[in-house]
């Protein structure tokens, strides 16, 4: 199994979720994060004080899938999240040893 971590633009979340569902992904974890990368942040001024905010709001997806589905998931995210503007995001893939479904105790591919 693989853990796919993707940082994408927040307004793309729904679209990506739908696209993934349609190729058979049945679960994921979504976290609101602050992204740092080549896309630059913004500056706010409050009276005299100026604050450079170097982070950009992003959404992080974490999806565990069977090895066989992995490439398709990466591909789908890449296509759906793409706007061709800087800051579209990154996808990382890691190896997963083991998976368990709490409710049933099923393990590995059955647990996904």
């Amino acid at each position, binding site marked *: 199994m693989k853990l796919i971590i993707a940082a994408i633009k927040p307004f793309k979340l729904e679209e990506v979720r739908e696209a993934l569902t349609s190729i058979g992904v049945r679960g994921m974890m979504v976290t609101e994060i602050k992204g740092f990368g080549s896309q630059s942040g913004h500056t*706010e*001024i*409050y*009276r*005299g*004080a100026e*604050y450079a*905010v170097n982070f950009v709001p992003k959404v992080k997806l974490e999806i565990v899938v069977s090895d066989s589905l992995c490439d398709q998931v990466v591909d789908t995210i890449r296509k759906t999240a793409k706007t061709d503007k800087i800051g579209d995001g990154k996808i990382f893939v890691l190896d997963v040893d083991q998976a368990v479904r709490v409710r049933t105790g099923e393990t590995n591919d059955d647990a996904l």
Partner: protein
Amino acid sequence: MADIKKTLGLAAAAAMLALPAFADTAPKMDSGDTAWMMTSSLLVLFMTLPGLALFYGGLVRTKNMLSVLMQCTLITGLVMVIWVLWGYSMAFGGGTSPYWGGLGKAFLAGVTPASLSGTIPEYVFVVFQMTFAVITPALIIGSIVERIKFSSLLVFIALWVTLVYFPIAHMVWDGSGLFFKMGAMDFAGGTVVHINAGIAGFVGCLVLGKRTGFGRDNMAPHSMTLTMVGASILWVGWFGFNAGSALASNGTAALAMINTFVATAAAILSWSAIEGMARGKASMLGAASGMVAGLVAITPACGFIGPMGAVVLGLIVSPICYFFVTTVKGKFGYDDSLDVFGVHCVGGITGALLTGIFAASSLGGVGYGKGVTMGSQEMVQLEAVLTTLIWSGVVSFILYKLVGAVMGLRVTEEEEREGLDLTSHGEMAYHS
């Protein structure tokens, strides 16, 4: 209307109290005046709680929110009790010293539901003035938030109102007071309240030093929404402050009211305009700052000048305050955290000086007293301003040092980092 004595609003009624010779022609209680003054009193409370508390609280970081609310709340409780014990008497106790009113009315001795102050029950005058005594020290905290030690603050405030506020209130509003006798024009308390608190705050931030991380950490307001709500409540409540200072429900109150509307409106516009020009965007904090600056500046003037003068005064004050909170503060690098000096002190001085000018009948104002010229009036205004700056500045400095020596003024850096809410009050402002 040209007679300055008649138009001195608050001061006039105070004078009546002080002049028993007028007793047989004394006015009867008027239910309309009383209704307005009761309303005004609660409006000024509303300014402090939750108005000022939110205006200030929204500007600090989440971790210090409750500390600001607590400071405002406890100052309110503390000063109200002090006021009925000795404060009212020190300010309006009937004594004839130019500096204080004596202790003749300590514990409100002699005041009953039947006592009158002009056309309103004296109790109403007592509470109206009480709300002023509360909001003034509460203003100070804006300079020293996010680092001041809670217990020390309360001790400082108790001393400060006693040695600074009550005497200056007496000087300005009591018939025997120093500024009153000089003929200083201060309709609703620009000197007593704003210059006074502004300089005390300024001295405070110099004595305490900057917040840990100042200039490095992001100290952006945790809720500009709350700050805007607070500013709006300040505006609404300020009609009690300004129009209430007529101590009656009449044409003078109406004048103070319209001026408090339009000067503020104009100051919002000019702050936003200058921001728009300087950085291309007008901000909510800017508009809220303009609002408060306009309110501060019109305070001394509201019963003396005409609505067109008020518009101009509002247009003028914002750029001046803007210059102080951006350029001057940046240049000298002091951490007047919420700009008490830049807005209240500077705005208050601007208002005090412009009052003397726009009061001219040729500029739509009510005119000067007999034999008074614009120039001479300005000298008096300046004298009142300087006296307040010096008295309040010096005594505040001494009190900070004193309290600091005895019990310390600042929390530890560790506590500052974790936030005062948890470390000083054991709770947090928000949970899910």
